[in-house]
């Protein structure tokens, strides 16, 4: 179980651990060269918790329900032959579960995959720690507007 760094604002500790496990498979990939931080190192799940605490409460509620569905062994058994909870599945099994949702014929599962995919990618690649790794020098120096001291 991955434990949160600080106080959670929306998720339960169990839901957080699912999100952190999912994020760890989405970024940066198990073949990432040395120097690429893990999702845990950038606290992606903690940042997502803080973000989703500010959206409409019903949207936050749906997000928590999605994480519980991802974790459920039932969903795993139906989709990718694995009855284990997501957080206790082997990494390649976790990838297979995400891949099954990604390409599912069921629109609801594709939506669920997109939710966690986008949140993980947004928090990871918006982190300045990853800028140099993708060849992005970061924001430039801002020229001083005329008339400012």
């Amino acid at each position, binding site marked *: 179980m991955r434990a949160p760094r600080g106080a959670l604002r929306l998720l339960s500790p169990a839901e957080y651990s699912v999100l952190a496990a999912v994020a760890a498979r989405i970024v940066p990939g198990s073949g990432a060269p040395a120097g690429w931080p893990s999702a845990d190192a950038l606290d992606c799940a903690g940042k997502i918790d803080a*973000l989703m605490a500010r959206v*409409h409460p019903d949207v936050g509620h749906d997000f928590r329900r999605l994480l519980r569905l991802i974790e459920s062994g039932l969903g795993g058994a139906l989709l990718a032959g694995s009855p284990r909870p997501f957080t206790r599945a082997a990494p390649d099994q976790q990838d297979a579960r995400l891949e099954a949702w990604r390409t599912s014929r069921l629109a609801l599962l594709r939506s669920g995959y997109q939710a966690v995919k986008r949140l993980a990618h947004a928090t990871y690649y918006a982190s300045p720690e990853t800028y140099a790794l993708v060849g992005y020098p970061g924001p*430039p120096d801002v020229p001083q507007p005329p008339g400012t001291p």
Partner: protein
Amino acid sequence: MSGPGRIIPGAEIADTTAVEVDFAIVGSGAGGSAAAAVLAAAGAKVAVLEEGGHYTRRDFNMQEGWAYPTLYQEHGNRSTEDLSIMILQGRSVGGGTTVNWTSSFRTPERTLALWSSRHAVSGLGAATLAPHFEAVEKRLNVGPGNPDDVNTNNRKLQEGAARLGWQPELIRRSVQGCARLGYCGLGCPLDAKRTSRTTFLADAVAAGATVYSDCRVTLLESDAGRVRAVIAEVLDRDLDRPRGRLAVHARRGVVLAGGAINTPALLQRARVGSDSGVLGRRTFLHPTVPIVSFHDQPVEGFYGAPQSVSVHHFADRGDRVGYFFETPPVQPMLAALAMTGFGDSHRRLMERLPYAQSTIALLIDGHHDDPGGDVRADSDGRVRIRYPLHQALREAAVSAITDMARLLLVAGAREVWTLHDPPLLLRSEADLGHIAAAPFGPNRHTMFSAHQMGGAPMGDDPARAVVTSRGRHHQVENLWIADGSIFPTGLGVNPQLSVYAHARLFATEIARAG
């Protein structure tokens, strides 16, 4: 006259506050600011209520991780209910103009003609709108397109289109003193972008208007066919939760300008004039399909004016849905959202970011049989947006992806990657046939929307329109709408000038009527 007004942040508003004005204006983007400027200049006492916060160039740090949660609707998470279309829509003092990419077009004449012939819009020809476009262009400093604005990302689009005879055009931009940093979408750190906040809203405040930020309007109080007041939740900015209540009593009227999602949602939630069956339907998004190409030399699409070239060669395809091409800024977070896949395959694309060029196709929705989407607000304020992908739009998307891939190969791309999920890799003209064979549908290809239109359309027929061709509500005599929700179809161009100009026209006539 009582001297200039000011912008009051929610933190300075007492828990229970009531004020009385002539006009309450909901929203501070292009539409709300233009209406506020006209009405305040005419001597009316004006209050503008804005759900988002008030930020200026000192706040704009060019970090995607700050800007999207702070300056966009739903903290950057707005999308259709099934997540198939990500909806980029502004939410701060300045509304969409705080974060738009400065592209400035007048409403196309063929779109105005369609509204006249098919949607009973009357008296809104190009000649009627022209003085308002001229005034807006002057205030926003919209000059002719400037070839010096074209960065490498846009040059690829320009060169490919030119070689194919597809007539690339330079985009006119709303900037003054632009340093071409590339961060229009995150708030301009120079305030060189001419936004509503730095133009018409500033004019309104100078003429006495008061702007209340961090105030989310949730109710309209009305009786006897007139709206009397707007009621807002005063938001705690950090939590984005209500902590107070602001009541604005409007002696003369209310102008709604919260944009094409929030205005229909507010009218539904407030149950004002919502019985026509039209409200919240025919929502148009210019559904936007991106593509990514990789080049041998660096493109660095994260820098430079983000949008300077457009291609309207395919805007009119007769019986088929048209589309036009532009470019997005290629900054890491936005690129990571757009690129499909996860794990190693996604990272390998991200590792090549400086060599990536991106083009987008915006589908011109609503001009054919495609009915658009719909907006529904729950009683507790949750907004649900649905946008089924009509067959005519799917055909247009597949055609547009094929055309963009061809264009980028002609422009010298080493590889073109579609954003199907999973993506297609195209290396030559011979590969283009794979595009039509790939599944296209919700969450099978990345789609965005940066342009929200419709949902409370104008027109002279109350059975088919929410407001008249002058923005006045068909059932509520002192309620007007002055934002993108009045457009009966997608515009076919980036919307900011159209919103400003229509709002300025409507407000001019409201002021003239006394």
